[in-house]
C-alpha cells in the first residue's frame, strides 16, 4: 500500500519538475498572445536563454548571474520579434520560426567556439546551479504517515525556480486581471483600435507585453540548463516551447487552465519515463520511442478533440494598422 503511495508521490514529484519550464513558458506566451502577437518563438527564447544561463553561470560560477543573463538574452530575442512584427508589421509566425531556427543553430555554434566542449557547455560547481532546497522541519513532519511523505517528497526538495513557477501563476493571473497593465494587454489583443483611440500607444503596449514574455522565458531556459540539467546542449528544449504553446491554446489563453494543461503534459512525460522498459501483458515490451511520443500524441489528441472551439484573442496575428 505505502509502496504504491510512494510511487504516486514520486510520479507527482517528477510531474512538478517537468512542468516547471512549461509553466513559465505558457505564462510567458500568454502575455504576448493576449496582447495580439503570435509567439511561436517561445521555443527559441527558452533554448536561447538556456544557452545564455549556462554560458554565464559557467564563467562566473553564479546561478543568479546565469538567470539574469537568461532573462536579458530572452528579452533581446523578444525585442527582435517585436521589431519585425510590431514596428515593421511582419508576419508573426515567420518571425517566430526564424528566431527558433536561428537560436537552434547559434547556441551550439557559439558554445563550440567559446567553450570547446563539442557544442555543449558543462556547468559545474556548487553555486553555479540552482540546487534543491530543503523546506524546514522535514525531519519532524517526515515522521507523519502518508502526509509526511507528501511534504518531504513532493513539496520539499525542489530548486528555487520550481517554487517561483508556482508563484508565477497567481502573480500572472493577478497582473492580467487585476491591474491596469493587464486590462490594457487584454484590450489590445481584442481590439487595438479601442486602445489607440483611448490614447494608449498600441506599439509600446505590445513591446511591453513582449518584455514580460522574454523575462518569463528566461526563467524557463535557466531552469533547463542550470537547474534541471548541468549545462547546455544542442536542442535541449526538445519542443517544450511548442508544448507550452499548445497548453496555452488548450487553456484558451487563460492562466489557470493553461497551467493545468502544462501539468497534464508534464504528467504524461513523467509517466512515459516510468513506463519505459515495463512489459505490458499480452503485448510485451513497448518500444521506447513510442512511449516517448506519448506527450506529443496527447497534444494532438487534446487540441483536435477536447478543447472545443478555442476562441483566440480577436486581434491575434494581425499587425495593427490604423483603418483608413
Amino acid at each position, binding site marked *: 500500500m505505502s509502496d504504491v503511495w510512494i510511487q504516486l508521490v514520486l510520479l507527482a514529484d517528477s510531474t512538478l519538475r517537468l512542468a516547471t519550464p512549461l509553466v513559465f513558458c505558457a505564462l510567458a506566451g500568454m502575455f504576448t498572445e493576449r496582447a495580439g502577437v503570435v509567439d511561436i518563438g517561445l521555443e527559441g527564447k527558452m533554448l536561447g536563454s538556456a544557452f545564455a544561463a549556462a554560458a554565464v553561470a559557467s564563467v562566473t560560477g553564479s546561478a543568479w548571474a546565469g538567470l539574469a543573463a537568461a532573462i536579458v538574452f530572452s528579452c533581446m530575442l523578444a525585442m527582435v520579434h517585436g521589431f519585425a512584427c510590431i514596428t515593421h508589421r511582419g508576419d508573426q509566425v515567420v518571425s517566430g520560426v526564424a528566431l527558433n531556427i536561428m537560436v537552434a543553430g547559434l547556441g551550439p555554434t557559439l558554445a563550440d567556439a567559446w567553450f570547446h566542449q563539442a557544442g555543449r557547455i558543462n556547468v559545474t560547481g556548487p553555486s553555479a546551479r540552482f540546487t534543491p532546497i530543503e523546506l524546514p522541519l522535514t525531519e519532524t513532519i517526515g515522521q507523519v504517515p502518508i502526509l509526511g511523505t507528501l511534504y518531504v517528497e513532493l513539496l520539499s526538495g525542489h530548486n528555487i525556480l520550481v517554487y517561483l513557477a508556482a508563484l508565477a501563476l497567481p502573480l500572472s493571473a493577478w497582473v492580467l486581471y487585476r491591474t491596469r497593465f493587464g486590462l490594457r494587454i487584454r484590450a489590445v489583443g481584442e481590439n487595438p483600435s479601442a486602445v489607440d483611440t483611448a490614447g*494608449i500607444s498600441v506599439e509600446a503596449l505590445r513591446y511591453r507585453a513582449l518584455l514580460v514574455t522574454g523575462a518569463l522565458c528566461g526563467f524557463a531556459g535557466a531552469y533547463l540548463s542550470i537547474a534541471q540539467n548541468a549545462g547546455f546542449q544542442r536542442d535541449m528544449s526538445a519542443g517544450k516551447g511548442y508544448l507550452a504553446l499548445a497548453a496555452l491554446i488548450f487553456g484558451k489563453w487563460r492562466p489557470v487552465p493553461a497551467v493545468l494543461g502544462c501539468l497534464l503534459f508534464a504528467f504524461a512525460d513523467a509517466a512515459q519515463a516510468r513506463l519505459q522498459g515495463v512489459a505490458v501483458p499480452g503485448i510485451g515490451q513497448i518500444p521506447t520511442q513510442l512511449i516517448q511520443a506519448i506527450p506529443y500524441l496527447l497534444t494532438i489528441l487534446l487540441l483536435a478533440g477536447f478543447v472545443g472551439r478555442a476562441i483566440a484573442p480577436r486581434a491575434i496575428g494581425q499587425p495593427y494598422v490604423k483603418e483608413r
Partner: protein
Amino acid sequence: MAGDPGRIEPAGARPPAIELRGIDKRFGAVHANRNVSLIVPAGTIHGIIGENGAGKSTLMNIIYGYYHADAGTILVDGQPITIRSPQDSIRAGIGMVHQHFMLVEPFTVLENVLLGAEGGVTLEEGAAKARETLQALERDYALEVDLDARIENLPVGVQQRVEILKALFRGARTLILDEPTGVLTPQEADHLFRILRNLKEQGRTVVLITHKLREIMAVTDNVSVMRQGEMVAHRVTAQTSREELAELMVGRKVLLRVEKAPARPGAPVLEVEDLRVTDDLGVERVKGVSFTVRAGEIVGIAGVAGNGQSQLLEALAGIRRPRAGRVTVKGVPVIDPAQARRHGLAHVPEDRLRMGLVRGFVAYENAILGYHVDKDYVDERGFLRFGNIVDTCKRWMAGYDVRPQAPQLQATSFSGGNQQKLVLAREMEHDPDLLLVGQPTRGVDIGAIEFIHRRLIAMRDAGKAVLLVSVELDEILSLSDRILVMFDGHFTGELSAAEADERKIGLLMAGVTAEAA
C-alpha cells in the same frame, strides 16, 4: 471654394469650442481634406454633412488626433493646440464616438470605460470611484447602462451610449459623433437625439457627422457641408432646407425621391416556405419565414443589421445551406449558387468586397465571375475569349457609368460606388428572372445611389422580380412595392408601399408587432 466660416456667429461670449484653419490632408494620391476651415460655436449642436468620401470622417479624426494633418491649425476653446495623439485631444476636452465602436467586446461596460483612464496601477483603485462618477453621469444625461454587462451582449444602441459615457467620463466638453445612427432604429435614433439635446442644455458642444439630411434638420443648430474634401458651405439649420443641402452636397440638383409607376406584379418567381437558417456558430438566425416575390415587383426587407437578413439572403442565393424549408425560383429548388444562376437567379451580395468581387482581379475578370462558363466567354476547349470579355466589360462600363472606364484596372482601384455598379452590371446584364440585392448603396455616393435606384426600378418595370435587403430605411421606402420587416429572424410585419411610413416600420424593426402596438 471654401465658404465663409464667419457666417456662424459664436454664441454668447464663449470662444468657439473648435476652430479649424486651413486643414489639409492627403492619403497618397487621395486629397482627403483641402484647406478646410470650420468654426463650431460652444454649446451648440453642429452638423457636418457630406457624401461618403467627402472627407468628414478624416477631418474629425484629425481633430481627435487619430490622423495628423499635413497643414493647418486647430484651436480648442480659442487656444491653438497641437494634437499629436488621441491623448492630446482627450486632455483638451474632446471626445469621439466612432462610426465603428471602439469597444472591447468581451469586456464589461465598466472595463471599457476604465481603459486608458484607470486611475491607478490596480483596477480596484479606480473602479469604485469610476462607478460613482458614471452613475452620476447616467443620471444627468439619461444614459442608462448596466455597468457590469458585457459589451457583446448589449444591443448597438446601448453600446453607443457606452461610447458616449466613455467620452464624458474622460471629461469631454465637446463630443464628436461619426455617423451615429447608421446602426440604430428610428426610435433609437430619436433617443440619441434626446441625449444630444440634453448634452447641449448642460453647456456641452456636439459635432454630428452624417450623410442623412433628416438628422441634420432634426437636431442641429448649424450645419457645414463638405464636398470632395472641401468645406463648401456653412448654414444656420433653421434657415436652410433639405433640398438646398442635398444640392450643396452633390454639387447639382438631386431627386431625393425616386419616381416610379405603380407595380404590375405577375406570376410568383421566388417562393420561400418555412425557411430556417443557422449561422457559422450554429445559432439559428432565420426562424421560419415564408414569402413570395412576384415578377414585376420590388419586395424590400427592412430591419436593423444583424437580425438574420444576411443569412436569409445567403440561403436564398444558395450560398448557405438552410437547416429546413424550401426555396424555389420559378418552381425549381435552389441547390447551389451555380445551379441557381442557371435558373435565372442573380445576386448582388451585401459585402461586395468579400463576396461580390475578387479584390486582386481586374475589372473584366470580375465582370464575368460566376458566369465564366458561358459560351460567350469561354470556347469549347476551355480557353477564355479575352476579346469578347473585354469588349463586354467595356460596354457595361459605359452603360452603367463605371468610372474610370478601364477594364484592365484592378477592382480595388475603383471607388465603392463604381465597384458596386460593376457588380450590378454583371448581375443585371445576364437577364435574370430574379435579382437578390443586398445593401445596394452601402458606401456609395449620392450621385451613384440615384443611378442604382433607377436601374432597380427599370429591372422591375422589365418584369423581373427584385428582392431588396437594406438597412437604409429611406431606400426601402422609396424603392419597395411591398415591405417585410425582419426582427430576430422573424417577419414582424408586412406593409404595402402606400401604408408604410418610418414610424410604423421603426416599431416593427424594434420587434413591436402590429397586435402589440
